[in-house]
């Protein structure tokens, strides 16, 4: 065990111990707490209504965390048992493996495209091709991709260039030109783990599975912002996908890594252009058509995340509005539980995460700050923060263990709750209001720094 690992474990242990200590002393504090102070929260109708709402929201939040941890643990156990009972080598011999086309849409990915393509050439799979779609880049993406294609490889690399039409258009071009029976859609800046294709393809043994979502992880863990995002990807995204996979109903196949049956993609008409979250929209389209969507935690897509706050807000602004647009597009399932089945719960869950959660946490912060300043009782804000942090620490610890991630990420759960998520939630609230008002928006391409 190296010094770095010892440091990681120490950081994690200190964070957990610190929060447990705070919980214990605050629990003792409640016993000594003048219960009369609680009457402040019921002094007038406004305070009573907001307090009751926040209590209801907290109950939902605890339920959400409990359900996600339970389902993701069940999915984890199911995967472990499957692997023990049916070793992978008995499943597929190399000669019978179907062809997979990797579609790499690229728009101004000049700094990273060659490294990304070279890493794709090393994947552990006998039958695949790489198809680069240059979406009218104004930099040297096409020339750089072509240079890699001209090199001598065992894997075929094709490059298509077209007028700029957006990511959805590029992926649809890829779908039309793909020669494989299965298509793996990814981003131009993504690095895949070597086992990705083998790990994903085994899910298609089940004929009801139309697509497989991969596990997205942060590569550039270089500053506080990117490290907190690394935790967010593990705790917020991977855990949710794992839990949803237990029901075979993952609600977003991530842009950096999603594998599809080509026939299913074609039947669904490919990606639509009318939302800013084409991956979420396509996933909902597949779910509405009754296809199962699985999640493969061992197929990892390493991505570069925004390392500056304004770039991060730009990304989240697009995600928030895009997801709301996709939800609205499929909103018929919101009001028809009998016909929609599990899709009914998926859409309501998306609305909870997209609207209710950010609005409620911002409201909670503002409310308890107001109570603290107006009535001089700051303790409510402390308890509000502490219980949210405890939920985050529990979820982070569970995810770090299951995902075999860096233990120091647990420490960032405190930073996550104290600073990060409040800033993100504020931008989500504004983005939701702008979406509701129909404010015009643009794609907002993230500038790559070439950290792959």
């Amino acid at each position, binding site marked *: 065990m190296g010094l770095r690992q010892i440091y990681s474990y120490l950081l994690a242990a200190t964070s957990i111990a610190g929060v447990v200590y*705070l919980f214990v*002393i*605050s629990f003792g*504090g409640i016993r000594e707490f003048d219960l009369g102070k609680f009457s402040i929260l019921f002094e007038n109708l406004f305070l009573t209504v907001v307090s009751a709402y926040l209590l209801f929201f907290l109950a939902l939040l605890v339920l959400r965390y409990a359900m996600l941890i339970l389902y993701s643990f069940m999915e984890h156990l199911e995967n472990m048992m499957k692997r023990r009972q049916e070793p992978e080598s008995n499943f597929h011999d190399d000669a019978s493996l179907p062809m997979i086309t990797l579609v790499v849409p690229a728009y101004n990915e000049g700094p990273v495209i060659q490294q990304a393509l070279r890493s794709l050439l090393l994947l552990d799979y006998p039958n695949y091709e790489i198809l680069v779609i240059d979406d009218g880049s104004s930099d040297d993406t096409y020339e750089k991709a072509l240079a890699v294609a001209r090199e001598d490889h065992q894997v075929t690399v094709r490059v298509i260039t077209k007028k700029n039409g957006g990511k959805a258009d590029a992926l649809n071009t890829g779908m039309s030109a793909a020669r494989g029976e299965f298509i793996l859609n990814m981003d131009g800046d993504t690095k895949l783990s070597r086992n990705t294709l083998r790990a994903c393809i085994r899910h298609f043994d089940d004929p009801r599975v139309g697509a497989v979502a991969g596990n997205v992880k942060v590569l550039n863990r270089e500053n506080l912002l990117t490290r907190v995002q690394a935790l967010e990807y593990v705790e917020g995204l991977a855990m949710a996908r794992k839990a949803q996979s237990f029901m075979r109903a993952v609600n977003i196949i991530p842009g950096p890594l999603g594998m599809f049956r080509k026939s299913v993609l074609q039947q669904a008409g490919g990606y639509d252009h009318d939302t800013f979250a084409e991956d979420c929209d396509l996933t909902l389209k597949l779910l509405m058509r009754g296809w199962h969507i699985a999640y493969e935690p061992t197929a990892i897509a390493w991505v570069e995340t925004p390392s500056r*706050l*304004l770039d991060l*807000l*730009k990304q989240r*602004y697009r995600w928030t509005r895009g997801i709301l647009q996709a939800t609205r597009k499929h909103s018929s399932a919101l009001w028809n539980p009998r016909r929609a089945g599990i899709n009914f719960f998926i859409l309501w869950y998306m609305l909870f995460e997209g609207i209710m959660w950010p609005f409620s946490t*911002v409201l909670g*912060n*503002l409310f*308890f*700050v107001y109570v*603290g*300043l107006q009535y001089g009782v*700051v*303790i409510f*804000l*402390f308890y509000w*923060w502490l219980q949210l942090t405890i939920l985050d620490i529990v979820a982070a610890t569970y995810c770090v263990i299951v995902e075999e991630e860096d233990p120091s990420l647990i420490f960032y759960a405190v930073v996550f709750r*104290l*600073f990060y998520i*409040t*800033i993100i*939630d*504020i*931008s989500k609230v*504004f983005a939701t209001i702008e979406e509701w008002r129909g404010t015009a928006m*643009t794609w*907002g391409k993230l500038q790559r720094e070439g950290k792959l």
Partner: protein
Amino acid sequence: MDLISILATVILITTIGTLVVGVAAYIAFKLRDKRKPKRKDPTAEEHGEMQPIFLKRYVPGKQANASSADKPS
């Protein structure tokens, strides 16, 4: 002042600070996103296409007509 009260005050100050930073960051992001190069360049056409300042564009049709007109009959 006990530990919880001190921590509660720290959380209060941090929360107020983070709320202010959150709103300020969002405003900064929107302002930065709105900034675009000005289109009212004297060399720009109505549809935004830039005309070369020093070189005249070669148009084959025009050139052929001009050269045939120049020919002595």
